[in-house]
């Protein structure tokens, strides 16, 4: 019998304790959490009160090196394809064309001063597939591939999630390919003419012809 009454008593007291806690929160609802980021020194001084934010209008700032949308700074890309090989989900697709020697200047240098030897007509990142693991970033030799803190990039059409970073248009790429093929053919011919001379440096000084791409 005493257990019966003590049960009722503990029930009543614990329920009352719980209700005090919720009521305290109810009256604490006049305060609101601020939207300072975790790197802010005052972060834990502004977390009291209602803690949700109204997302599109207010948002928790993503930290500066937040790993979200993948971005490629194609100007620095040397087309080494290490990221493509490293990606566990195969979300990066790269096509490269070897630069002909006369185009080296047009191809340019990376910001680190390294001469680029590849045209990258296709550098597609399927951010819908990307799992933001950051492995591609860690292997990139020129640091041209990195995650940006842009977290919200939803699209209505999944095809828009395929980001193109290539630095040549299709027509340009065709022209470059053709040019490379011509040059290689010529080199092979010269090689044949030389009678199988051990790998003479080809360096064919063909007349610099107007690139169709430049005309556009």
């Amino acid at each position, binding site marked *: 019998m005493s257990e019966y009454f003590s049960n009722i008593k503990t029930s009543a007291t*614990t329920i009352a304790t*719980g209700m005090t806690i919720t009521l305290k929160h109810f009256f604490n609802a006049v305060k609101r959490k601020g939207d300072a*980021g975790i790197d802010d020194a005052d972060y834990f001084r502004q977390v009291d009160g209602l803690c949700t934010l109204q997302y599109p209008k207010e948002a928790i700032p993503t930290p500066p090196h937040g790993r979200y949308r993948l971005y490629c700074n194609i100007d620095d890309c040397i087309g080494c394809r290490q990221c493509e090989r*490293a990606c566990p989900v195969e979300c990066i697709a790269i096509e490269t064309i070897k630069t002909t020697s006369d185009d080296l200047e047009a191809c340019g240098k990376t910001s680190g001063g390294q001469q680029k030897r590849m045209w990258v007509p296709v550098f597609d990142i399927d951010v819908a597939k990307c*799992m933001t693991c950051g492995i591609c970033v860690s292997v990139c030799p020129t640091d041209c591939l990195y995650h940006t803190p842009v977290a919200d990039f939803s699209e209505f059409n999944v095809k828009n999630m395929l980001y193109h970073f290539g630095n040549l248009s299709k027509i340009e790429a065709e022209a470059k390919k053709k040019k490379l093929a011509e040059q290689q053919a010529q080199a092979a011919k010269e090689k044949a003419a030389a009678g199988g001379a051990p790998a003479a440096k080809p360096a064919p000084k063909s007349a610099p012809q107007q690139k169709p791409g430049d005309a556009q």
Partner: protein
Amino acid sequence: MQELGKVESNSTRIIRQDDKRVTIEKDLDTEHMVLSMGPQHPSTHGVLRLECITDGEVVVEAEPYLGYLHRCFEKHCEKIDYPAIVPYTDRMDYLAGMNSELAYCITVEKLLDIEIPRRVEFIRVIVSELNRIASHLVAIGTYAIDLGAFTPFLFCFRDREHIMNLLEWISGARMLYNYIWIGGLAYDVPADFKKRVDEFVTYFRPKAVELYKLLTENEIFVKRTYDIGIMPADVAINYGWSGPMLRGSGVKWDLRRNDPYSIYPELDFEVPVPDGKFSVVGDCLSRHLVRALEMEESLRIIEQCLAKMPEEPNFNSRALIPKKIRPKAGEVYGRAENPRGELGYYIVSDGKSTSPIRCKARSSCFVNLSAMKDLSKGQLIPDLVAIIGSIDIVLGEVDR
């Protein structure tokens, strides 16, 4: 042997007592009902399906069906490089990514036999203990919601948010970190990190007490979990239970103590086991209590780590990462104490390729869940929900 769980006729039911014995019970001519609970059910924590044979509200037999979230983790691992497996381990137990990564990395490091800088070890322990708190918060919160209390759930998520912010700050991602790498870390922690974690500990202590008062001490909660789903210690061991589940059955078994890794031997913390005063040892309440008490222990570990962590300016956390990870031929079984129990990896390397030829993940939830069939026998449907909640499964880890 008769096929178990099949209802012979309306009045007969077959109950499996243990592996060998089967009793056939006859009682009033009531009809049994097959009730498919899940894969879309609010309290099966994802996509677990339980096929229950029910006699009114009483569950005669519940058979779990898995595989709805099977993502071929082990098959993937055989195709990709060792470092590239790390982000996949995040996705197994997605509530405790850091712990899964730690378990994987120490396993591969064991195979590689390499030294880890001391600062890296400390950071690893801090982040995995933070993640353990976050994971236990989800476990406790969802358990509350299984039992009908909504408010503690959101309080848990409010506090977990700060941990996720902290981890996002250091790793760049909120849940799937890929932060702990084989042989090191992706980044060193920011300058203010220690201070902020310290502030979090001060912030979280009173909140944990409040949660304890609001939920754990609540008489209705206690009544719902007390003496429900009892698992005796020897059966628990035989089932391979680990982590809070095993400790809930009164076995003081914690891999951080019993098979120490990283810097845990240097740290002072308790392994909480229920003493049987507040709960019956091995019931749902014990398991809940173990989780609630473990959060406090994790806070203590974090505090000690913050105090002991060596300061190294311009520390390069990737300095000792091997350029090409190709372990010598051999096999290894490594494990770590995850929030849900022992997470082990069995890795076989042939010494030639840069990806393992076999990588098996011993998932704690998978093993813990395998006792579901025995635990659920003769329970009411609300108790079944309470038991599933107390097992605290993450289907990502069960199905892999």
